[in-house]
């Protein structure tokens, strides 16, 4: 076989460099909030709380809400 026990490990096992917190934080704040808003509309809108009147959103994502484990009704 090509591999031997003493062979040094390949580059895929190298520990990746850290990304500075300062580079990640702005993305995390902006997109984190945006993603949470999306999750709110899938998981909770027109259930316990309601921003849009009616039941259209609730009815449209009804099955997804049940199967993703959110309290639905």
């Amino acid at each position, binding site marked *: 076989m090509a591999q031997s026990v003493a062979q040094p490990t390949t*580059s*895929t*096992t*190298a*520990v*990746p*460099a*850290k*990304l*500075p*917190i*300062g*580079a*990640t934080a*702005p*993305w*995390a704040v902006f*997109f*984190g909030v*945006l*993603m*949470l808003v*999306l*999750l709110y*509309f*899938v*998981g*909770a809108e027109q*259930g*316990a*709380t309601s921003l849009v009147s009616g*039941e*259209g959103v609730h*009815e*449209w*994502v*009804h*099955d*997804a*809400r*049940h*199967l*993703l*484990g*959110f*309290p*639905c*009704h």
Partner: protein
Amino acid sequence: MSGCTTPATCSASPATDSDEEALLRMNSATVRNLLVRGMLAGLAAGLAALVVAYFLGEPRVDEAIAFEEAHAHEHGGEELVTRTLQSTAGLSTGVLVYGVAFGGIAALAYCFALGRIGRFGPRASALLLAGAGLLAVYVVPFLKYPANPPAVGNPDTLDQRTTLYFLMVVLSVLLAVGTVILGKRLAPRLGNWNATVAAAGSFVLVVGLAYAFLPSYNEAPAEFPATLLWQYRLAALAVQATLWTAFGLVFGLLAERLLTPRTEPRTATAAPATPVPN
């Protein structure tokens, strides 16, 4: 970092300021690229979860709705969205948006975790993060407040159940982050193995306390088939297990492709791209 992207800027700038700026820009681009890949991997994972939800979950939802209609007291009124639309387009919308949203959040968490959680490469880090996500975002809240099919759940308690469910998710995610930090702090003193066991043990202990003190809701109607409830909850668990596992595998692959070339010496950008053997 000693590497300079182009010789021209290197020789022209004696100040370290522009070097730091260039590094920050490069790191910011990496975060952006990981975020985009996370959302794409989330979309792919959402598609896999959608298949499971449609074939394992929907038959159980239909059975539960049939039960609901057979036992309804004052059901009626016109359907706003037909069952066919709910179980296809509606289900797809919800699951795919959920996949993309958690894909994005997980990718950002990955940017913080990368290189900080031990000696794990890009792919192993992604799969570990996905496993932690499944546990913290879904399994821990699910064990206290499991998914309910239609016909199970009292509308009068919906407000409390929704609040408590989201509280449980937030609590569980914060505890998971705290556990990782605790494990890292303990590692120099106890060693990696003991530190991991101690941190995980404290996580289980605090989650157990939360389970004991938060109110429970068991609102299945007495005649609701126990088998159906069990099958429904297993299907809901399968949807999430599929989603997070697929995300971990796909995102790990994409992240590794993005991150690995950076550790190798860069050739000049003007040179024709050499194919990288995979």
